[in-house]
């Protein structure tokens, strides 16, 4: 599974989000919810532009992705936060 993380060197929030490109359908729900964190690239696929955004908003964007294409992990420990483990 390919992921995209075009983050800058800015201080990340508590959660780090990544987009699984092969799952993304470009519906732009994440960009609507967290415009400071996600944008659609030239191929119409969501990409992460910053990890600086509000953590609750980033998590909500991940939870709202209709195809589950966004994962959130604890930025310090790397533990998965979203999606929920089985």
């Amino acid at each position, binding site marked *: 599974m390919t992921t995209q993380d075009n983050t800058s060197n800015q201080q990340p929030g508590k959660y780090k989000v990544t987009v699984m490109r092969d799952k993304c*359908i*470009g*519906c*732009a*729900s994440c960009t*609507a*919810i967290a415009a400071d964190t996600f944008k659609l690239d030239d191929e119409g696929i969501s990409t992460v532009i910053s990890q600086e955004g509000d953590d609750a908003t980033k*998590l*909500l964007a991940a*939870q*709202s992705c*209709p*195809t589950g294409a966004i994962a959130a992990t604890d930025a310090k420990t790397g533990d998965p936060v*979203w999606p*929920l483990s089985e």
Partner: protein
Amino acid sequence: MTPPQTYTARLEEKVQLNDKFTQYSFELIEPHRLKFKAGQYVSIKVSTQGERRAYSICSTPDNDHQFDLLIDASPDGLGVQFLQSLEFGTEIEVLAPMGHFTVPTDLTADHLVFIATGSGVAPFRSMIEDQLRNYQDQRQITLHWGMRQATDLFWLEEWQELDENFANFHFHPVLSQAPAAWTLCRGRVTDCLSVHPRPTQAAYFLCGGKNMVQDVTKLLISLGISAELILTEKFY
């Protein structure tokens, strides 16, 4: 587009349309009005762990104090189970409005062709009614709706009413398992499209199963339709 925000809504009504499909009506509590465009969807929180499911709004934007959803119970997933368990008056958390699958105001087409299978017809109920009633759109508007069996169809009185009151609206249900007495289109929506005259300056809106969307898109492209005039709801 209005950016999405979190709403609290209360289950007001459930209408069992047939064995598979149910229409749910939710009254907005806080905020109490939702400004959306026909074709947009809501994201409902369906578990305490934060899991969410997306559903197209099938009511029209002029009714901004509530929204209606069409639910296909046959997948029996987490979202369906959550909605079926709701008692009247139960409050839910909704993120809305979501999505870009709307009729663009600057669309140059003189014919709007809506093609759906199954519950993919949900956003079209909102979009078609909105265009006809609220925008008084005089362009030709055609709905091709594919289902398996006649008993799967619903909203027939509503489509019939639009057909009678708006001369520019045309309704073409198509059944893949049609009874012998069925006099309308048979087969798949692609068969239905080939039976009816193809408009020249049309925009196509597709919503439904992934295979249908792929097949119809391929067909339209092969017929020389510009990809820019083929709009699809991507989350289905």
